């Protein structure tokens, strides 16, 4: 299984019936492919749609029914549309149960940077700042490292998306949460050792005592006791 699929599948296990969910572009979009059977999840597209369906069949696309990237999609029965103020009212007002976003960096307290690389890439924050500030739960889907360098870092060198910590980071190596504001290894992916995760992670990483009971069937438990790796916070 490739890294992206692995990450998306694991995140899909966080879905619950009736949730309103917003998926960012890239790996997050793939999460929609792994909704458990029989579960009804509302997917919001921040350009003003709840009930986003798959891409339209050839010849059936409507130019006025698109995803946030402007690509034609379909709408499921029970869909609803609204203006941009309402769309972000849903996001900012605590109605959005979960957002899944890509990440450039996450600091050891869970703060995300994912919207710009000064001097290089300035696409604009789009809806990212609202999503992180407003969603009930924020999950970051990203590769654990980029060009061999950790993306979970002591301190973000890139501009933050929000000062509100994310809830979970899911990579091809591990699932990391931020209880009490401290990066905590909750699960390792199948065949990955704690040491490998620690080596690929910058800053402090607490090892959860519950690591022995991973929620992902294929994930491997590696440590039994709460252990702090690296310098204390």
């Amino acid at each position, binding site marked *: 299984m490739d890294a992206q699929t692995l990450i998306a599948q694991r995140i899909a296990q966080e879905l619950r019936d009736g949730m309103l969910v917003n998926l960012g572009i890239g790996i997050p979009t793939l999460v929609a492919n792994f909704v458990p059977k029989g579960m009804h999840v509302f997917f919001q597209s921040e350009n003003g749609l709840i009930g986003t369906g798959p891409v339209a069949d050839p010849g059936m696309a409507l130019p006025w029914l698109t995803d946030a*990237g*402007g690509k034609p999609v379909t709408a499921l029965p029970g869909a609803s549309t609204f203006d941009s103020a309402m769309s972000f009212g849903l996001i900012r007002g605590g109605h959005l149960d979960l957002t899944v976003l890509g990440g450039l960096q996450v600091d050891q307290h869970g703060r995300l940077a994912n919207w710009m690389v000064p001097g290089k890439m300035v696409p604009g924050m789009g809806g990212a700042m609202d999503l992180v*500030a407003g969603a009930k739960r924020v999950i970051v889907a990203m590769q654990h490292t980029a060009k061999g360098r950790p993306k979970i870092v002591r301190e973000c060198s890139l*501009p*933050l998306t929000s000062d509100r910590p994310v809830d979970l980071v899911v990579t091809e190596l591990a699932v990391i949460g931020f209880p009490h504001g401290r990066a905590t290894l909750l699960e390792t992916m199948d065949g990955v050792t704690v040491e490998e995760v620690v080596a690929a992670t910058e800053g402090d990483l607490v090892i959860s005592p519950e690591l022995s009971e991973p929620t992902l069937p294929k994930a491997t438990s590696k440590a039994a006791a709460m252990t702090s790796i690296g310098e204390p916070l």
Partner: protein
Amino acid sequence: MKTISLQDAAAMIPAGATLMVGGFMGVGTPEPLVDELVRQQKGDLTVIANDTAAPGIGIGKLITAKLLRRVIVSHIGLNPETQKQMLAGDLQVDLVPQGTLAERIRAGGFGLGGILTATGVGTIAAEGKQTVAVDGRDYLLEPALRADFALVHAFIADYLGNLGYVLTARNFNPLMAMAAETVVVQAENIVPVGVIAPDHVMTPAPVVDYLIAKG
């Protein structure tokens, strides 16, 4: 509400004007009006919009034609030309979080001085902005936005100017229709009065100034 030709609608807009332009990645942008602005070479414009679309699409055409002095948008990532002009110093780009942008435009149209949002607190988006505490939580004070003209795309308009939007082409259009001195509408379909049910009117007629007549 008056009807106006496409040509006269664009002619009415002076160089240097501030425009709100509906649309999200070009979806729900009044494309013929954009084309006519390019044809008439209206320059030095400021555009308030969600994004700068992509080259050849919606606001992207204004970018490529170098008609813009400044954009106030949430996203420019899919238009390399915007980035190029920005880096060259030819275009001022003010980036605003999308939800904040929507509310600032709404505030301008709804007579509110501004809004208090937690979005952007603790980030560079907060730089230079007033922070206001309400019930112990910090919010940024984001001031209202207004424009000289709103260029609005509607799916349906009646002879009075009542408007309806379709699916994801709604986006910023109804907000902008409230927030400009002069509101110009390009509608896909123009219908007699009474055809749109009162409950389905999304922008009431009295706020619309001009409806572009079919060519």
